[in-house]
C-alpha cells in the first residue's frame, strides 16, 4: 500500500525508493534477517558460526558470480549443477591417490572443462540463435551423463591431503575457500564496473542492437560471458573437493537454481542489463544466512523449504516492482 502511494508521488521520492530497493534494499534485508536471527537463533552470532556460514555460502557465491555474467547479457545457465559434477569427477580422478604435485594439473583440467562447456553453451546459443535456456538445459543432461559415464557412478575419494587441508584452512580468521570466492567476486566486480568489457556487457544486455550498430561484436561478448561462467564452475568443483574430500557424479543437483536465486535476489534482471556482483554476493549471503539461521532455530525441514521459497518470490516481486517504477520514471522525465 505504502509503496503504491510512493510510486504515484513525485519522481524524486520514487527514484530514491527505486535505489533503496536495489542493492541497498537487499543489504537492508540481510541486516534485518541477521538481527532477527541474533535475537532468536541461539549461537547465531558466534565467530565459529559466522565462519560456518561463510564456508557454506562459498560454492553458491562462486557459481552465482559466474552466473551474473551470463544473466547480465540476457542469458541463463541451467547446466552448472551438472558441469560442476563433471569437472569434479574428471579433476578428482586425476588427483586420486596422488600427492600435492597432482593438484595444479587437476585445477587446470577443471577450469578447462568448465570453460569448454561454457564455450559450447555460448557458441551454440549465438551461432544458431537459440535460447540459452534450452541449450544449457541440454548441457545439463550431457554433462551429468558424461560424469556418470566417466566414473561408472562410483564416488571418488582419497584426494590429496594438501587439497583437503586447504578446505579447512583459515586466513586471518576467514575460511580460505571463502577468501577464494571473495577474490573472484572482487575481480568480477572490477571487470564489470571498471573496464570497457564490463560496460559492453551491461550495454549488450540492455540494448544489443545499439551495441552492434556502434561497431561491437555482441556475439563475442556474450560467448565470453558464458565462458567466464563455465570457468567459475570449474573453480567451484575444486572448492567442493577441497571442502568435502570426495567427488561424486550425482553432486550438484539443483545448484543452478540456487545460483540463479542468489543473482535474482541480488537485484539482477533476468532480461539482462541490470545486476551487480555486490548484489549477487549479498543474495548468496541472504540465502546462506536464511538456511543457517532456520537450522539453528530448529525449524523443521518442510518449513525451512517453504520460507526459502517465499523469500525468493518476495525478492522477485520487489524486482518487478522496481522495474515498473523505473519505466514510469523514464516516462515522466
Amino acid at each position, binding site marked *: 500500500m505504502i509503496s503504491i502511494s510512493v510510486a504515484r508521488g513525485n519522481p524524486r521520492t520514487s527514484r530514491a525508493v527505486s535505489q533503496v530497493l536495489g542493492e541497498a534494499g537487499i543489504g537492508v534485508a540481510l541486516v534485518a534477517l541477521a538481527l532477527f536471527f541474533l535475537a532468536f537463533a*541461539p*549461537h547465531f552470532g*558466534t565467530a*565459529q*558460526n559466522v565462519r*560456518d556460514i561463510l*564456508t*557454506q555460502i562459498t*560454492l553458491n557465491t562462486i557459481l552465482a558470480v559466474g552466473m551474473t555474467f551470463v544473466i547480465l547479457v*540476457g542469458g*541463463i545457465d*541451467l547446466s552448472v549443477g551438472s558441469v560442476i559434477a563433471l569437472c569434479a569427477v574428471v579433476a578428482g580422478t586425476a588427483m586420486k591417490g596422488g600427492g600435492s604435485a597432482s593438484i595444479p594439473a587437476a585445477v587446470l583440467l577443471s577450469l578447462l572443462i568448465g570453460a569448454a562447456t561454457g564455450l559450447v553453451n555460448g557458441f551454440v546459443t549465438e551461432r544458431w540463435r537459440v*535460447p540459452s*535456456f534450452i541449450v544449457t*538445459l541440454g548441457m545439463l543432461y550431457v554433462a*551429468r*551423463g558424461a560424469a*556418470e559415464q566417466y566414473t*561408472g*557412478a*562410483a*564416488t571418488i*575419494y*582419497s584426494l590429496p591431503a594438501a587439497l583437503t587441508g586447504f578446505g*579447512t584452512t583459515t586466513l586471518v580468521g576467514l575460511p580460505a575457500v571463502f577468501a577464494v570466492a571473495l577474490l573472484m567476486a572482487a575481480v568480477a566486480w572490477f571487470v564489470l564496473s571498471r573496464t570497457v568489457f564490463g560496460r559492453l556487457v551491461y550495454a549488450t544486455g540492455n540494448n544489443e542492437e545499439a551495441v552492434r550498430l556502434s561497431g561491437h561484436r555482441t556475439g563475442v561478448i556474450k560467448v565470453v560471458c558464458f565462458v567466464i561462467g563455465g570457468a567459475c564452475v570449474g573453480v567451484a568443483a575444486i572448492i*567442493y573437493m577441497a*571442502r*568435502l*574430500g*570426495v567427488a*561424486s*557424479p*550425482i*553432486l550438484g*543437483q539443483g545448484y543452478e537454481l540456487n545460483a*540463479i536465486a542468489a543473482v535474482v535476489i541480488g537485484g539482477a*534482471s*533476468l*532480461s*539482462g542489463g541490470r545486476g551487480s556482483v555486490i548484489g549477487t554476493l549479498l543474495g548468496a549471503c541472504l540465502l546462506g544466512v536464511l*538456511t*543457517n539461521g532456520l*537450522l*539453528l532455530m*530448529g525449524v523443521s*525441514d*518442510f518449513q525451512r523449504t517453504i520460507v526459502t521459497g517465499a523469500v525468493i518470490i518476495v525478492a*522477485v516481486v520487489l524486482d518487478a516492482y522496481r522495474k515498473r517504477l523505473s519505466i514510469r520514471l523514464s516516462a515522466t522525465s
Partner: protein
Amino acid sequence: MNRRVTLAAIVTVAAVIPLAACGQENTGNAASTKPTGKPTVCLVMKSLANEYFQQMQKGAVDHVAQLGNVTLDSSGTQNETDVDGQVALVEKCITKQVQAIVLAPADSKALVQSVAKAVKAGLKVVNIDVKLDDAALKQAGVDAPFVGPDNREGAKLSGLELAKALGKGAKVAILEGNPGADNALQRKNGFNDAVAQGGLQLLDSKTGHWETDEAHTVFGNMLTAHPDIQGVLASNDSMALGIIKVIEERKANIKVASFDNITAVKQYLQSGVMVSTLDQYGSQQAANGIDYALKMINGEQVTGWQKTPVKVITKDNVG
C-alpha cells in the same frame, strides 16, 4: 529475452524435467520381446547414476550370465524420484510382453497402479529394494512378493553399535534421507528404535537429502546449535562423508553410525570415527529378485516378504 517468458519457461522446465527423464536403458544381450524358449525378465530400477543401483545392475547381469536360461532387459530412471519415468519403463515392459518384472519402485504408492496393470496383463511382478505399500496393493487387488532387506532392522543394528560405543544417555542426532522416500522413513524408524533400545538421547533429526554437501551444511549447523552431540546416525554413507568432514574440521570427538557400506567409508571405519555401517548386499538384491521371478514363472506361488540378509560392518570385519 522477455523476462516474463523466461520465468514461465523456468517453471515449465521444472515441471517437464521428470517427464523428459524417461530413462537410460541398458539392455542385456538381446532386447527381443518374444521369448525364444528363454523367458525375459525386465529389471526396472531407480537412478543408475547411484553407485548402489549400478552395483545392483551389475550383480543382476552377472547372475543372469551365470544362469544362462533367462534374458535380462534392465533399465533405470535418471534420478531417484523420477516416478513418471519409471511408470513409463514398467509400461514398456508390459508392451514388450515379457514374462516377469523385477521392480525397485521410485515410490512405494505411485507405482502400484503400474504393477496392477502388469499383473492383470499376466506378468509376474517381484518387488525389490523398497517395499510397495501394502494398503495400496490391497486396494488395487494385487499382490507382489517383496524380496529385500529390512531397512528398519538394518538401521537399528547399525544404530545399536553406536549405542554400544557411546554408552547409555549419550546425545545423538539423526540425518535423514529424502522426506517421503520409504527407505528413508524405515531407516529413520530403525535409528529411533536403536535410540530407544540403547538408551540414547536424541537432540535433533533433519534431512540431508542423501547428499554429502547438504549433510555437511546441515550437520555443521546442528553441531553449532547442539555442541554436546556425541554421535550421529546417518541414513546413508554419502551423508556420513559430509558429517565426518565437519567432525574433522571441528576436531570434535563424535562417532558416526551409517548405512550402505560404500568403498569411500572404509578408511573411516578403520580410523574409528565411523563405528558402523550396514551392508544389505545391494549388488545381490536384483539377482535375488530374478531368482524369485523365475520361480513364479515356473508356477511356484511366492507371497509376502522374503527377507534377504544384512550385515553390520565395523572396524573388526571391514577388512
